[in-house]
């Protein structure tokens, strides 16, 4: 780990090994992954398909897919170890201390209930609020994520919402019980440029207002460059480089990060033809 950030880390992952066992074969998924999310900071976790970035997020929140399990390592949230075999304790972490936002907002919401009904269930799971206060809080959070027509959206079913609107509802739901950490797994992939900007600005705004610590998982280096403080680059299940974004993006130390940054800058492949004077 590079202790480049002076701030106290709220979430740390140390020497995490995760593997997939199917029948007799064991495939390593994550190898010696270490991360450090500074308090009230925004850390970008970048990598390509299959690099293990999503698995890292799911290991943190304790929701690895069937057959995938942690072999060794440590994950601590505000000093306390999360990798203890206790599902009830983990349930008190999810939604309460760590909120999570997924890539596909329209399938993340429960299709058979209205927005308000499913948000109420999340609220009831963690907080003891009187009935009218619940509705007030839900409306308050929907307004917080930039929804103007709160009453209509609260009554809507997920399939009636656009992708951007659904992602706002997902964010509102995951923040409903005031977690201190937000993990956003490709929160804007598949959304249009205009909507992507809206959602990213919203996350940045919420982060500043509530001193949220945000781990943003993405394949898009542009998001890292514009919104994060620091970045960890993953490739084939390993963190190959970590550091403040300026340092990593401007003078990458690892050969893979260098290639990734080069590939993201498509300007380089402009053909010779157009650069000639016409």
């Amino acid at each position: 780990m590079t202790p480049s950030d002076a701030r106290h880390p709220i979430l740390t992952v140390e020497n995490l090994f995760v593997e997939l066992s199917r029948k007799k074969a064991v495939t390593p998924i994550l190898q010696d992954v270490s991360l450090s999310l500074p308090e009230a900071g925004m850390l970008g976790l970048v990598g390509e398909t299959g690099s293990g970035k999503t698995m890292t997020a799911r290991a943190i929140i304790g929701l690895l897919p069937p057959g995938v399990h942690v072999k060794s390592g440590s994950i601590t949230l505000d000093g306390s170890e999360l990798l203890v075999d206790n599902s009830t304790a983990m349930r008190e972490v999810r939604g309460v201390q760590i909120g999570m936002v997924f890539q596909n907002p329209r399938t993340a919401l429960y299709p058979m209930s209205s927005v308000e009904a499913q948000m109420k269930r999340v609220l009831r799971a963690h907080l003891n609020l009187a009935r009218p206060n619940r509705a007030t809080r839900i409306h308050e959070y929907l307004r917080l994520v930039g929804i103007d027509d709160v009453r209509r959206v609260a009554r809507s079913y997920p399939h009636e919402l656009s992708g951007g609107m659904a992602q706002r509802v997902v964010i509102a739901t995951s923040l409903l019980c005031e977690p201190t950490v937000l993990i956003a797994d490709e929160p804007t992939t598949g959304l249009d440029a205009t909507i992507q900007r809206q959602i990213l600005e919203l996350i940045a705004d919420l982060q500043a207002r509530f001193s949220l610590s945000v781990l943003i998982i993405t394949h898009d280096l542009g998001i890292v460059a514009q919104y994060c403080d620091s970045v960890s680059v993953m490739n084939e299940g390993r963190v190959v480089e970590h550091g403040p974004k300026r340092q990593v993006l401007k003078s990458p130390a690892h050969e893979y990060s260098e290639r990734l940054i080069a590939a993201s800058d498509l300007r380089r492949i402009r053909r010779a033809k157009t650069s000639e004077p016409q």
Partner: protein
Amino acid sequence: MNAEAAIMNARQWLWLIAKRVIFTIPILFGVATATFFLTRLAGGDPAYQIAGPFATDEVIAAVQKQIGTDMPIGDQYAAFLGDILRGDLGTSIFTDRPVISDLADRLPATLTLVILALAFSLVFGLALGSFAAYRRGRAGDKVVRVGSFSALSVPDFWLGLVLLFLFFFRFGIAPGPTGQIALGATAPRDITGSAIFDAAITFDSAAFRAALHQLWLPLMTMVFIFTAPITRLARSAVIESLTSDSILFGRACGLPKRQLWAYATRAALPPVVTFVGILFSVLLSSAVLVEAVFSWGGAAQYAVNAIRQNDFPAVQGFVMAAGVFSVAIFLVVDILYRVIDPRVRL
């Protein structure tokens, strides 16, 4: 504002139901047409069968005149449709009573069996299927999977016989194949024709116990068979919803297990409900055989006897009635589906 929305909503629902009911009219018409032509096509002129193999030409001609088959086929068809619209399904040759009242007497017995079997199979199937889904890959799941897969292959009528042998002949805890009401047993006041239902609504506990005693074995036969496909379907549907993004998000929000199970099971309901519509006509087929095994005396057994005795109008009447019931179930399922799943609503 809210009341207004509720009225709007109710109006939309009424309109939807009305639309669906109107859509069934051509299907019912088709059912009637198919009944008429299929029985005519397959059987030829029923007069020959009614009159018997040794009848003279004059007798046949008389029978033809009596049942109307001397008319051109188009006129016969028109007459048949006209009769149906008046609720007249003809007169049974064997019982010499209107087919419609014969059916009215016997259908409740059949429907008791079919509807109770459907209800129990649904409850057991959903429970077993969800259970297997939640314990996917573990021992419990394997038992349910192998069990339900094997049960799919068991012939219902044979199972009925085996159960009779075991519980009647060997253990003596079930009655023999003696129908809805055993000879000499306490019978409830006959209101609908379904012994157990009549006993229940007249609070006749002795008759209820007697009827239940007769009912449990045939019911068990059918429930055993039909729990299997529902279990398999429910299992795969619950697995699909358990692995969906929305359950993952629910878990990430820290929802309690109870809530997640409720989510997954509810999301698995639409395919199960759709399947019930298909299952109903299979259940009616099964009832034909189970009734025969247990001498149940319902409409299905009536139809089989009618076929054996070449009782042409009775066969036609039963096929028609069964078609109408199936269409009605399709209608109910279609509306239920929309109630359950907001995505296809209205």
